[in-house]
C-alpha cells in the first residue's frame, strides 16, 4: 500500500509560507492580506496538528513575497505566526511576525461615535500594548482591545 504523504499541504517551489497561525485566525489572515483578490496559487489548511500549539493553520502563497509592514499586520490576530520565504524549494527567510507600532485601514474603531465609523476615513491606530494588543484610535483616542477587534 502506498505510504501516505507527510505533508497535508503541498510544498511550494517559490513563494511564502505563513505557518503556526492560530487555527481560528486563518480566514482573518487571508482577509487582512487581501488574498481573496490574489490570483496566484494559494494553499491553506486549518486544524492541522502542531507539536507546539496543538492545532494550527498554515497558508502557502506561490510566487508572492510580502512587504514586512503587510506581514506584521497579521501579528494582531496571529502573534505566533512564522513567516517562511521559499525559493527553489529552499527556505531563504524564516522569521516570526512582530506587532507594528501603528496599524491602519483594516481594524474598525470600537467607538460607535468615532468619525471613522461615519465618514469614508481609513482607520489609524497607535499600538498601546503589544502583549494584550490594545489599539488607540488616532482620531477619537478611544482604545480598542483585542476582544473587540472587527476587521474591515
Amino acid at each position, binding site marked *: 500500500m502506498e505510504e501516505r504523504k507527510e505533508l497535508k499541504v503541498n510544498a511550494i517551489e517559490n513563494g511564502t509560507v505563513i505557518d503556526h497561525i492560530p487555527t481560528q485566525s486563518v480566514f482573518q489572515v487571508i482577509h487582512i492580506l487581501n488574498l481573496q483578490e490574489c490570483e496566484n496559487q494559494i494553499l491553506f489548511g486549518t486544524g492541522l496538528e502542531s507539536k507546539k500549539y496543538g492545532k494550527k493553520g498554515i497558508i502557502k502563497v506561490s510566487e508572492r513575497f510580502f512587504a514586512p509592514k503587510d506581514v506584521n499586520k497579521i501579528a494582531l490576530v496571529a502573534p505566533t505566526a512564522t513567516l517562511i520565504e521559499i525559493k527553489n524549494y529552499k527556505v531563504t527567510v524564516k522569521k516570526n511576525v512582530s506587532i507594528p507600532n501603528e496599524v491602519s485601514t483594516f481594524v474598525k*474603531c470600537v*467607538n460607535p*461615535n*468615532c*468619525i*471613522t465609523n*461615519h*465618514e*469614508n*476615513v481609513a482607520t489609524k491606530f497607535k499600538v498601546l500594548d503589544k502583549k494584550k494588543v490594545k489599539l488607540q*484610535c*488616532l*482620531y*477619537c*483616542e*478611544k482604545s480598542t482591545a483585542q476582544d473587540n477587534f472587527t476587521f474591515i
Partner: protein
Amino acid sequence: MKDRSLVSISDYTIEEQLNILNLAAEFEKNPRQKILESHVVASLFFEPSTRTRLSFESAAAQLSAKIVGFSEAGTSSVSKGESLKDTILTVSSYSDIIVMRHPREGSAKYAEEVAPVPIINAGDGAHQHPTQTLLDMYSIMKTQGKLDDLNIAFVGDLKYGRTVHSLVEALCQFNTTFHLVSPTELKLPSYVKQHIKDKKLTYHQYTEMNEVIPEVDILYMTRIQKERFSDPIEYERVKDAYILRLPMLENAKENMKVLHPLPRVNEIDEDVDNSPQAYYFQQAKNGVYVRMALLASILGVV
C-alpha cells in the same frame, strides 16, 4: 504658532499654551483691534452650540475679521449628504481658518488632515474642547495669579464631563492638588485619574462638597444630568447635595472663585451670583479673549 491647528490641548506645548494665555491678557486690555481685517474666519457648527459659536464669532468680529459659516448641519449642504471632507475642502477655499464643532469624536483631527487651512476644534463629540480648557486655565491664572500650587475642586458629574477631563489633564502640567466631589455613580474615570497619578500629584475624593469649600482656591461646578443615572431614585437622593448656595461660601478663602462652564441649570443658586466668589460670567467673557489670542496667533498676525 502660525498655521498650527488646535485639535487637542496636547497639540500645544505648555509654553505655547502659556503664550496663548499671555496673549489673551493683552487682548483683554485692548480687545478692539483691526488686525484681522483682511481675513475670513469660517465658523462651521455641525451641531448647535450657541454659546461657543457666539464667543468665537465675537472674538473674530472684535478683531474685524469677516465670518462665514453655518450654525447647524440642517442649514448646510450636510443635509444633502455631503461628506465632511468635501465640506471642509470647499470651505477651505473660502476662508483662512476653520472653527469647527462636530458631533463625532475625531472629526476635528480628520478635518485637520484634509484641510489646507488651520482648524480650531470647537468641540468634537465627547472627545475634546480645547478652547474651553484654555479659557478655564486663563480664568484660574487671572484670579489666582498663577497656575502652580493650587487646590482645585471639581464638583458634580465628573464621569461624563468632557470639560472636567480636559481641564484635569491640563492642570496635571502644574503642581495641582485635586479635590473631586461627585456622587459615587459619577466619579472621575480611572483613565483620567491615571494622568494625576502619572505626575505623582495628589487627589482626594468626596461625596459632599461642604468640607471642601474652605480648602480650595477654585470650585469648578458642573451640571448633574438626570439621564446619567441608571436609577432615578438615586438621582432624586443626590441632586440637592450638589447645589451651591450662598451660605455655603461663608468659610471660603478670600481668593476662592467659583467657575462653571455654563449653561447652568440649578446647581448654583442665583443668590451666589452677587458674591465675590462668583466668577462664571467673567469666565465666559474670558473665552472671547482666549479665542482672539488663538485666531490672531494661528493666522500669524501677532
